[in-house]
């Protein structure tokens, strides 16, 4: 996708006149100008309908030979179409180069990367023809090469957005709760105050002395209660912020991975462990003998025709393998040497005598 030079963009000086059909707003109150990001030539919606309803057509502007489609038209967000175009381009570049700072080893690398992206964007927006083509090629190449990574980053970004959105919502909800709570408390306080006052009045009416003091006591109690409530709220708030901070950091950790220059080593998932090996990597390939065809023994020959063995699925090869293994297993194990060497500590023997199996474990390790 290559675009015409920006200099060809018209400025809608006459906001009220369609440059194609010359209709003016005065005649059509609902006139709406649309552009197509192919060439950013604006025209009114009537013209668009008229020209492109029957399928793709050439841009009606003189000298513009782009083929436009109905589908590509939209209303411009910015009045200045060159800004509109730049924003489009930036959006597109940002969608492709969507690394985050966490992806880089150092801040410097990240800055270099941003610089590179910015240069590229600038070339696209306002470079010469050759520059633009080169930048376009780079962009496309990068996009093609890193499709998966881009997609992942995009998703991660989306997730992070989603999380922050949720967090915001939660915070709003919490704030609302707090407000409701505060209201309720104020209400209660008011009620309390009224009750106190009544009590005070009652005590006065009954002519008891120290009523004022009692009233003060009640007030003190109330203040105390308020203090408690405030403390509880503070604790709760602290917990909440801690939780949200944790959420934020985890969200930040989620965003990430990928590789350009200076990109951090991708946090590699642990190397695939492969299927579980119950034998702990023991090698079962014999090193002294080969189990080859033609290993047989008269004693097993006679069973080969025996339905009792054959029907049940008895595997004669298994027997052969096992017999061969036993014939050669341990042929090179020299017990005298190994056990003596293992014990080289004659103290080790004493230990094995007195400490039993644990000591034997030691000895095995030495072996």
């Amino acid at each position, binding site marked *: 996708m290559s675009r015409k030079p920006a200099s060809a963009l018209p400025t809608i000086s006459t906001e009220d006149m369609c440059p194609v059909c010359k209709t003016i707003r005065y005649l059509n109150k609902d006139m709406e100008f649309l552009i197509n990001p192919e060439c950013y030539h604006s025209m009114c919606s009537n013209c668009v309908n008229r020209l492109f309803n029957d399928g793709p057509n050439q841009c009606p502007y003189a000298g513009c030979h782009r083929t436009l489609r109905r589908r590509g038209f939209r209303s411009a967000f910015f009045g200045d179409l060159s800004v509109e175009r730049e924003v489009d381009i930036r959006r597109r570049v940002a969608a492709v180069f969507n690394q985050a700072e966490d992806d880089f080893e150092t801040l410097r690398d990240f800055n270099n990367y941003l610089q590179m992206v910015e240069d590229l964007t600038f070339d696209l927006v306002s470079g010469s023809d050759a520059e633009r083509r080169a930048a376009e090629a780079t962009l496309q190449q990068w996009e093609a090469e890193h499709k998966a990574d881009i997609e992942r980053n995009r998703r991660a970004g989306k997730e992070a957005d989603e999380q922050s959105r949720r967090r915001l919502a939660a915070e709003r909800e919490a704030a609302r709760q707090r407000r409701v709570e505060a209201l309720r408390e104020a209400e209660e306080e008011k009620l309390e105050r009224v009750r106190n006052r009544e009590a005070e009045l009652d005590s006065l009416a009954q002519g008891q002395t120290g009523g004022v003091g009692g009233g003060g006591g009640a007030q003190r109690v109330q203040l105390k209660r308020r203090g408690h409530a405030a403390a509880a709220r503070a604790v709760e708030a602290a917990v909440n912020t801690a939780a949200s901070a944790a959420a934020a950091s985890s969200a930040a950790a989620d965003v990430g991975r990928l590789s350009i220059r200076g990109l951090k080593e991708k946090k590699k998932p642990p190397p695939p462990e492969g299927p579980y090996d119950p034998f702990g990597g023991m090698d079962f390939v*014999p*090193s*002294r003998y080969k189990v080859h065809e033609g290993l047989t*023994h008269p004693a097993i020959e006679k069973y080969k025709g025996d339905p009792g063995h054959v029907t049940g699925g008895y595997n004669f090869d298994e027997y052969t393998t096992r017999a061969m293994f036993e014939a*050669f297993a*341990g*042929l*090179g194990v020299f017990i*005298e040497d190994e056990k003596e060497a293992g014990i080289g500590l004659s103290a080790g023997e004493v230990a094995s005598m007195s400490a039993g199996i644990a000591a034997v474990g030691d000895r095995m390790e030495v072996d």
Partner: protein
Amino acid sequence: MATEDARYRQTSQFQLWSFSPTQLSAMREKTNTAARTRIAERLASLPNSNNTSAPTSNANTPDPDGASTPALPVFLTAPEEAQLVTFFTSELLRAGDHAEMTDEIKATAAAFFRRFYVTNSIMTYPPQEMLIVALFFGCKAEGSFVSITDFVKTFGRDNPEEILAGEFLLCQGLRFAIDVKHPFRALRGALMELASLPDIDRARLGAAETRAREILRFSPLITDAYFHYTPSQIMMAALSLADRGLAERLITQTFHHIAPPTDSGADTPAADGGPLKESAPRSEDKAQIIGSVARDKVLGTIEACRDLLSRELPERREHWTNRAVIKAQITPLRKKLNKCRDPERWNLVELQRARREQAAKKSDSEDGDPDDRADKANNDNNSDAAVFGDALPRDPKRRRVLGEGQKGKGLDDPFGGPL
């Protein structure tokens, strides 16, 4: 390291029950010393405490002369014990033959029996009972489950309790290592390999196998071969006793790797196409695993094992049943044994009953009188012994050991405290 060897090193047979000859004799010596000390103490304490400890005196009743002699008897020495164990192993094999058990069962039982008496003295537990127990447990370990009543009948006894009483004891003595690796199937493997060579006469193979199997059925079981050598080495030694040429052929065939620049051109048999073609980078490894140095070492080991086996060739079966021999060598030892056996442990049924009683008493006397509580405190020291439920049996032993803590390690169980 050869993968086969690595796998063999994982077995309990290698890890728990393989010893060099010096180690083995040291252990036997130690067991013997510990048993002497304990039995001496028990015999000494018997006349005094005759009325106080009921189970002890009960256990002692079948052994009047041991109790009545105040002076200590002459104890068996470790070599004498070993000889008795060997004799009873041959008895065990005969018993196995009598019960028509398979070779594996007999071999397993024999290995169990010998292992048990490495860390337990023959003076402590009765070998005649234990060999039956070993046979019964060997049946189970090899997956042939006979009913205890049938089993008892086979041996002309009438009380299954006698066998069951020793079973857990045996397991403990084996340190619960119940898998014994035998050379029988290995022999099959070796013969398969030999039979696949082009220039070997089948008749010769058959004869060698029969003879080697006969050797395997007796010689390694009645010697310490299972402690000192791996099954494949034992198998090779037996094969070598049967037909030296075949065994050597198999060894040279196996350890055929020639270090490229150095070694002389030992003949490489025609059948080994594959392994030799593999290229240089692993050459050093290969030289270690199947090179000539390894070959010589293996040959040396097999030769040593062969010597050991040749001391007890199957023809010696008669030797162990020969009345003259028994009268000359074994009977004196047994007489000696009768005098010096452990009064508390000898009767397995009584022993087990006493242990159960004690265990029951322990659980009853949670809030008992001070005496009991003192007793209990003593037990609590060893509460880890309760892992297998049967915590008390070791207790008398332990108390004694604790009492003379200074005397130290000689007294300790060869395999240490309870699991």
